[in-house]
């Protein structure tokens, strides 16, 4: 602009007219300015077009190239597995995107897929999700995202290599939509050194666990036998108690009953322990959990991945031990699970890209190169022995974990179904906030159940109270 002004000034000065008025204000100046404006507008349009054409050209050349880039979305924990793939297959182009893993009912994956569906493109080729309900959600007509895998996309030999029942959460109406990363069944973790030091024996029932908790509170205050500060604690305490708040008994019919004695027996057991402090209300991933409870966790029921993911640094290496899931004294022992992780691939792929993506998906979820570095117990049977051996060799555990893990993996109760809403999220905003405001778990069960029923009804389910 300044240049224009000076330019104009020179011209008007040269003519020796209107020297008093500003050059731009003069008619002359304005006339001269217009072509300039026009040309600069043209230049902007031209450059915009150039950028656009360049963009088209690059994407066209990418499409024309023989090697497609495979976009993989993972949480930060899964990054090493994708890097391992890249290292083992240097010729395959991978575009790895890290996101929050859709954890804790955040729904970020659904958001992304909904947007991609709307614009008709941009779907990630492979996605890892921490949310076990995602097969039900993403395969629904609302999203239609994941590819069916048991139609030859993934060899049936691979699908057959999974532990019995572990693909149940991936299966909707007989179609398998995902591959499990790991099994996340709950176990009883305990500190064997503390157990010996205090002279306790490891409980085998929930009642025994609670009795020991009460003893710990009086004899060794400050030590804990569990935690109820997180929104997945329904999976840890209610699921193994066969509490019917999430049981899809047939298509579109769900049992939700907060007054179910199976639910109250669990909460009534925990309430006094929260009161006496032997069960903490701190989140296990809060910033100070590690320092507050360093070597003060006597016992903790939690998913298999707690072993490698939570306890190192909190429990001295070699003091951690695992025991079978707790039973309720009568009936077969069952347990719950927290997450476990699912690998999905897009249904919007074709031809060579689809085959390549399927092979990457299979590698990430079944090869030992990937599973060997995963913190979770592999769902793919062939990897289990080597993974357990690796864990044992790490020196974290004081007992043999292989038989415990293998047995518990088959004991997950099937009455806790994958549903399109996040049960954990509702548990967090009702029961956990209730505990934090000084209420008991038992008193919050009805609020928990009624909100779950609201979600179920708004998603078109019929809610019943008995199976």
């Amino acid at each position, binding site marked *: 602009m300044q240049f224009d002004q000076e330019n104009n000034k020179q011209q008007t000065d040269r003519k020796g007219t209107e020297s008093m008025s500003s050059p731009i*204000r003069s008619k002359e100046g304005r006339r001269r300015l217009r072509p300039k404006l026009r040309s600069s507008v043209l230049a902007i349009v031209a450059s915009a077009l150039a950028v656009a054409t360049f963009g088209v050209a690059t994407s066209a050349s990418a499409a024309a190239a023989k090697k497609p880039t495979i976009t993989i979305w993972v949480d930060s924990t899964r990054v090493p597995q994708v890097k391992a793939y890249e290292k083992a297959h240097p010729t395959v182009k991978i575009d790895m995107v890290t996101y*929050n893993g859709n*954890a*804790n*009912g*955040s*729904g970020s994956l*659904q*958001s992304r897929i*909904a*947007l991609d*569906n*709307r614009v008709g493109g941009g779907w990630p080729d492979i996605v890892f999700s921490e949310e076990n309900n995602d097969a039900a959600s993403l395969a629904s007509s*609302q*999203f239609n995202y994941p590819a069916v895998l048991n139609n030859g996309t993934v060899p049936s030999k691979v699908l057959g290599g999974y532990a019995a029942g572990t693909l149940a959460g991936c299966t909707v109406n007989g179609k398998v939509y995902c591959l499990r990363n790991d099994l996340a069944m709950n176990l009883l973790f305990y500190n064997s050194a503390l157990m010996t030091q205090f002279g306790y024996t490891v409980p085998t029932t929930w009642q025994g666990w609670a009795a020991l908790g009460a003893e710990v509170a009086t004899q060794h205050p400050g030590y804990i036998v569990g935690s109820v*500060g*997180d*929104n997945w604690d329904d999976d840890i305490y209610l699921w193994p108690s066969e509490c019917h708040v999430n049981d899809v008994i047939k298509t579109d019919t769900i049992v939700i009953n907060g007054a179910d004695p199976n639910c109250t027996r669990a909460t009534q057991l925990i309430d006094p322990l929260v009161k006496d402090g032997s069960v903490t*209300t*701190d*989140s296990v*991933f*809060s*910033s*100070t959990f590690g320092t507050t409870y360093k070597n003060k966790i006597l016992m903790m029921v939690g998913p298999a991945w707690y072993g490698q993911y939570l306890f190192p640094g909190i429990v001295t290496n070699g003091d951690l031990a695992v025991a079978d899931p707790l039973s309720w004294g009568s009936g077969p022992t069952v347990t719950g699970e927290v997450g476990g992780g699912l690998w999905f691939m897009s249904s919007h792929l074709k031809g060579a890209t689809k085959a390549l993506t399927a092979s990457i998906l299979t590698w990430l979820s079944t090869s030992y190169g990937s599973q060997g570095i995963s913190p979770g117990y592999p769902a793919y049977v062939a990897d289990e022995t080597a993974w357990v051996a690796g864990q044992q060799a790490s020196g974290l555990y004081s007992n043999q974990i292989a038989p415990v893990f293998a047995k518990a993996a088959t004991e997950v109760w099937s009455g806790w179904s994958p549903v399109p*809403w*996040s049960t*954990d*999220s509702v548990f*967090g*905003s009702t029961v*956990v*906030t209730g505990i*934090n*405001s000084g209420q008991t778990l038992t008193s919050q069960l009805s609020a928990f159940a009624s*909100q779950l029923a*609201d979600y179920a009804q*708004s*998603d078109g389910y019929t809610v019943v109270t008995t199976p």
Partner: protein
Amino acid sequence: MKSVVSHQASTPQGTTDSLGSKLRRKRKNGVAGYAFVSGYFILLALFGIAPAVYAICLAFTSTGGHVVGLSNFIKTGEDFRFLPAFENIAEYLSIWLASLVVIVIGLALMLHSISRKVSAAFRFIFYLPGALAGAASVLVWLFMLDPTVSPWRLFLGIFDFKNLGQTILPGHLPIIFAIIAFWAGAGGWIVVTYGALNNIPNELIEAAELDGAGPMQTALRIKLPLIKKWITFMLILAFAAGTQLFVEPQLVGEASLGLISPTWSPNELAYYFAFQNNNFNYAAAISVDLLVIGLLCAAVLVFRTKLFEVE
């Protein structure tokens, strides 16, 4: 904002110009005005008006594109999350707007009556938190609210908060979000209100002082009525921004690993409908609800205070 203040301050004094030159200036001003406004207008049309029109279209149609009248509004209104979300936002707004009006105007009046140098320093300090963008300021607050890491853990200890979960109980959320909003947004409004106060002719204040008005009386009887329109303006914008609360509950919810309902505020509920249930029509209906509420509030304030009337 600045341009409005300076424009008012430099209202043309000279009225002796000839009619011709006046007209010319008017035409020139007109052209320059359009040029200046055009940039904003294009962006407004692309990212403000067009999406709003799109939302209104979506709100009255079904997923398949059929016109369904008010059905989307009725269905979302009957949803179990609808009323709690609007209750939450109403509670939040009443705290945030009341504190905004009382504290911002109080501080601006105080700043205006102390010496310029000191007041400049204070204005800068008040404005500083506003320099942090929305999401960043929430992250700062996440640390402040977690008693295990907060620099204010002593203060949080008075309320017996032992972990983040206890600080962010549902009952505490409206006031927490109001504090965050105030902390991040009030500074800007203090500066604006101060600008408005500077716009008051000195003669008026001097006359009031000569008549024996003390600082308090000058503030309440002279300055306050003269900046009434600015206060209305602030209220309209703050109300509109407040009803759209989203980042705060969303981020605090994620940071607490899901202890806040994902549909805490109406905007979050709209987001949930759009992206969790893939129902953009329901989401649009809720955003139209918010638009109508915002417009109604603005209309009431504009007509009650005669905001657009020029004296």
